[in-house]
């Protein structure tokens, strides 16, 4: 049984039909993970009991499998009356899981900012919130553009986990075709190549963004 290019081509429309779902899940999860991760890092940095607790939560998240989070949100929460759609659960699961990793990335990015920068902001009487928005975050982003891009690619590549929740994303579609036709190589390869293409686009975009950020100053 060789690789049938014609069959691969015929599976392409069905698999591509799911690209919207894959990209939506990936994009919303990236935003969610970045937002939660940044919040985590801000609370952890502030210290105190809340900071210690969040530090523990970050370690806990990073030490557990992402599938455990998806199963937990999907199958356990309904026992407590929380019923969410499979897309919502998928996005929540990926966002929470990767927020733990992104918090670490943000930490590294902030730690690399010279101590004199927040001091100058204080000396200029900037409020803490303004110092974060106008002084810390822009410099943090310059420091972490590359690892941040890597995690965005990771999130994209993690979207097939949502197959366990029956979210119709690309790899799941490819596997459906394979199950129906008993031809695995073609649809799975097609899906893999689309992921490859998307990952290349994201990492190129991040490279351009990094160049643009560093060109200034």
């Amino acid at each position, binding site marked *: 049984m060789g690789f049938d290019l014609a069959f691969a081509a015929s599976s392409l429309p069905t698999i591509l039909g799911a690209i919207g779902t894959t990209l939506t899940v990936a994009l919303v999860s990236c935003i969610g993970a970045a937002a939660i991760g940044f919040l985590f890092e801000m609370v952890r940095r502030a210290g105190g009991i809340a900071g210690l607790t969040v530090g523990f939560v970050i370690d806990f998240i990073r030490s557990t499998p992402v599938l455990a989070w998806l199963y937990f949100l999907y199958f356990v929460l309904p026992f407590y009356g929380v019923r969410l759609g499979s897309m919502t659960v998928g996005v929540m699961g990926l966002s929470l899981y990767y927020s733990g990793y992104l918090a670490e990335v943000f930490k590294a990015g902030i730690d690399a900012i*010279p101590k*004199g*920068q927040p*001091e*100058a902001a*204080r*000396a*200029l*009487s*900037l*409020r803490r919130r*303004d110092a974060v928005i*106008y*002084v810390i975050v*822009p*410099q943090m982003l*310059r420091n972490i553009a590359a690892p941040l891009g890597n995690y965005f690619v990771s999130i994209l590549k993690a979207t097939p986990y949502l197959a366990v929740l029956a979210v119709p994303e690309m790899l799941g579609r490819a596997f459906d075709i394979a199950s129906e036709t008993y031809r695995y190589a073609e649809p799975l390869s097609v899906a893999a190549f689309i992921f490859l293409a998307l990952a290349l686009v994201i990492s190129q975009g991040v490279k351009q963004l990094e160049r643009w*950020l560093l060109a*200034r*100053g």
Partner: protein
Amino acid sequence: MLAQPETMVGIEGLNKWFGALHVLNGIDLDVASGARVVVCGPSGSGKSTLIRCINGLESYQEGTLRLAGTTLGLNARETAAARRQTGMVFQSFNLFPHLTVLSNCTLALRRVAGRSRSEAEDIAMAHLERVRIPEKARSYPGQLSGGQQQRVAIARALCLNPRIMLFDEPTSALDPEMIKEVLDVMVALARDGMTMVCVTHEMGFAREVADQVVFMDGGRILDRAPACDFFGASGHPRSRLFLETILKH
């Protein structure tokens, strides 16, 4: 009869420890409005810590520090309000590298003083002209020499119209040929009547503008004198030794 000049900074019995290190040991210092005080001393003497206490960047454990009538460290809001009367210039400039020279100057005007963009830019440009660098307004700090960056940092600190300027070794990170352009700006500022506290080893500057030179070592003020006396023969033996060492170069 002349009115007594207002006390801008009043420090009494100031003590500060970093862990076991007694970094400020019973400091008393008054800076009158319009006065220009130069603080010198060997590294580790506590002079930078002292100047950083004046605008509340560092806290202290004992004594009192009054800035423009407010005792620092009692109330966060009052401390913040008092800090707005100060401008600070750092040894390493600490310009924001991701912002243009102009945006470095307008950030606090817009976010702290609540000025509009055009108002803020007008004020910032006026101060950039004052430090003779208006042509670099659209450049980023990384594109400037050290001396240019430090002049921008002075302009940035002046934008909020401070009543006292604090300089923490402003020329120590500069190549020798750039020191003069920064000192010239500081001398001009002194001539305009700005109250200044400068941590510096630039004794030429001290001689030219200082009313009072303070010599610190080991967290204490060992010697304080009008500039003319400090450079004369009457000083404390420890400060004489220090002067001889640095003036040899």
